[in-house]
């Protein structure tokens, strides 16, 4: 068939496309069904959060941070509050630290449940999506019970948390954890051994460890490539060093490993939340912080392990009530950046699988 003239053509995957989880546009150069080149085009969701923060006082920035990454808003609150606390050297009360860890880990579970659902949905299995969201609802209810919000919590504040948990929180939380742990078995039964799932994910989208490190890829994607690095353990923040848990690591760096690793992380998070609930002390939930919070001159880059990798905030303070500069760094930013370097060569369906298992969310990329 050598005589037929063929030519590559460009397909716009996005900005509105079911598989891009938001408004990302991937310009694909395709040879038939084969993806030859990927060029991510971002900025459709650019809300200038960094610029807006420069004109807000520090406590007013926290609701902006909720919008920076709305799937795990708790961690955005945490990373900003932590930066402010490090700037002003505020000691956070013990109970507040425990509550923070509980909320952060619950939010991580919720985010990974969404990952489970959307990834399966991107490969055509629609049922797991509903399963994932069903269990996430339990966690969202817990958050609603605590801070009245279901998506943008504004819960973790500078110096502590905004409200104490209600009395019925702890039994409800334990119940929810038991349910989720039971349902994990169902999830794995549905996909782990499914032959179609295996041929769709095993060996697809192999991300070598060197490439991942060099591109600043972090979090579950990095650990799936065999790099044993978790900020919760290796650059401890809050009180993660007090709990007994394992960092999940896989070796192959393909889509299947990224999927397995996240399921394992749900298990570890459940264990952390249980330990935190057991050890929850009585006491104050918020250090005394003036509403006109004025940190001394200085700068800090604070980072935490979010469900999508390293989430960091750089703050430079000039000694006034408003930050001089706030820079947000999300894990998805670097993951999407690395995509053109390992996502090519497969078919469109493979690209969809790779994109789904990177678990990119676009507000974090565009900010």
């Amino acid at each position, binding site marked *: 068939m050598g005589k037929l003239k063929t030519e590559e053509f460009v*397909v716009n995957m996005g900005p509105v496309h079911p598989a891009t989880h938001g408004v990302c546009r991937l310009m694909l150069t395709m040879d038939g069904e084969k993806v030859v080149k990927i060029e991510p085009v971002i900025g459709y969701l650019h809300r200038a959060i960094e610029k807006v923060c420069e004109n807000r006082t520090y406590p007013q920035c926290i609701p902006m941070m909720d919008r920076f990454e709305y799937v795990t808003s708790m961690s955005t609150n945490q990373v900003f509050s932590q930066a402010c606390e490090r700037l002003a050297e505020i000691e956070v009360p013990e109970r507040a630290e425990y509550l923070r860890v509980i909320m952060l880990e619950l939010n991580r579970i919720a985010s990974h449940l969404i990952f489970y659902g959307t990834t399966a949905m991107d490969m055509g*299995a*629609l049922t797991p999506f509903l399963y994932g969201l069903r269990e996430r609802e339990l966690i969202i209810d817990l958050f609603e019970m605590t801070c009245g919000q279901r998506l943008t919590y504004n819960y973790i504040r500078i110096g502590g948390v905004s409200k104490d948990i209600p009395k019925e929180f702890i039994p409800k939380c334990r119940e929810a954890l038991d349910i989720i742990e039971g349902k994990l078995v169902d999830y794995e039964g549905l996909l782990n051994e499914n032959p179609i799932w295996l041929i*769709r994910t095993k060996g697809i989208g192999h991300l070598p460890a060197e490439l991942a490190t060099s591109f600043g890829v972090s979090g579950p994607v990095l650990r799936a490539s065999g790099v044993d690095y978790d900020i919760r353990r290796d650059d401890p923040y809050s009180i993660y060093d007090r709990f007994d848990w394992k960092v999940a690591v896989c070796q192959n760096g393909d889509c299947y490993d990224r999927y397995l690793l996240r399921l394992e992380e749900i298990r570890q998070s459940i264990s952390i939340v249980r330990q935190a609930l057991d050890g929850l002390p009585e006491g104050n939930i918020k250090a005394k912080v003036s509403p006109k919070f004025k940190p001394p001159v200085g700068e800090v880059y604070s980072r935490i392990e979010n469900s999508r990798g390293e989430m960091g905030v750089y703050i430079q303070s000039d000694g006034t009530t408003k930050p001089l500069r706030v820079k947000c760094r999300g894990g998805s930013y670097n993951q999407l950046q690395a995509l053109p370097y390992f996502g090519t060569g497969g078919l469109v*369906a*493979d690209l969809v699988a790779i994109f789904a298992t990177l678990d990119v969310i676009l507000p974090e990329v565009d900010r």
Partner: protein
Amino acid sequence: MSDNLGNLELIHVFYWLKELLLSTGLGEPYVTIVSYVVLGAVTFGVLALLALFLVWWERKIAAHIQQRFGPMRTGWHGWYQTIMDAVKLLQKEDVRVDKRDKFVFFWAPVVCFVAAFLAYVVMPFGNQLIVADLSIGILYVLAVTTFTVISLLMAGWGSNNKYALLGGMRSAAQVVSYEVPMVAAILTVIVYVGSLSMVDIVEAQSGLFINWFIFKLPFGPIAFIVYIIAATAEANRVPFDIPEAEQELVAGFNIEYSGMKFAMFFLAEFVNMFTVSAIAVTLFFGGWNGVFLPSWVWFLGKTFLVVLLLMMFRWTYPRLRVDQLMEFAWKFLVPLAFANLILGSIMKYLGWYW
């Protein structure tokens, strides 16, 4: 079969209608024409309603697999939801792409819709309840169901959209590949019946369920499995729904269609699903054969069970990739189907069957 239950056979309604027409004094040829027109209209109407019902049923099954309710607001368990949806689609603006291929774009849904219904000319709904008993029945079905692929290609080409074109090309490749194992599986049955007529095929399975070809043929279950896999692919359903793979091609070939034209594609898809199930029942599950109940009830009941199977596939499995799909067809299904056919033919020749 007792007499009073036998009166429930729909074929008597047809005879009654014919006698009514004859009593008005019309000549014999005109009566035949009128009665066939009525028959066609009724078949068409019933099938359109059936497609609407299938859409509702699929939504309910999907909902229950996913542990939710599905449509609940419109009537009892939302029974007229799809009727309202169809009415909504009828009212919608017919959006047309500027740079479409006008002729092809317009006729694609029509061809798809018509092709979906053509197969029912030879479908034996019940005892004697068949529009025309063609002697080449099953061959005719295979021929007209493949029309669908032409319509999908037309839709893909006419839309002037790369996603649509990819969807059309995928569907052509898929249908051509899966036609081969499907025909091989059907041939296994035909070898035993010795006739292509649908009525002959059903009558060869009369009697107890032990006479159904899935049990009677030497490797009946294998033939059935090959057929049902190929049929799922033929009906473009998960795990073989790559022509319209939502997360890859957005909506595939029907991406640029809206309103009524989209509704035609949509209903045709469900009619196709019913068609392949009905053929599966005719070939492997004894068609309308059954005891106590009227034959058309048996036929519909069995068909709905096969449809249920297809729906459960859809809501359980992820989708295959396009090259894996081809590999599966050519490297697994085709050899299996032909081995089955050859073995079955040898056993038929030697008389090693019952």
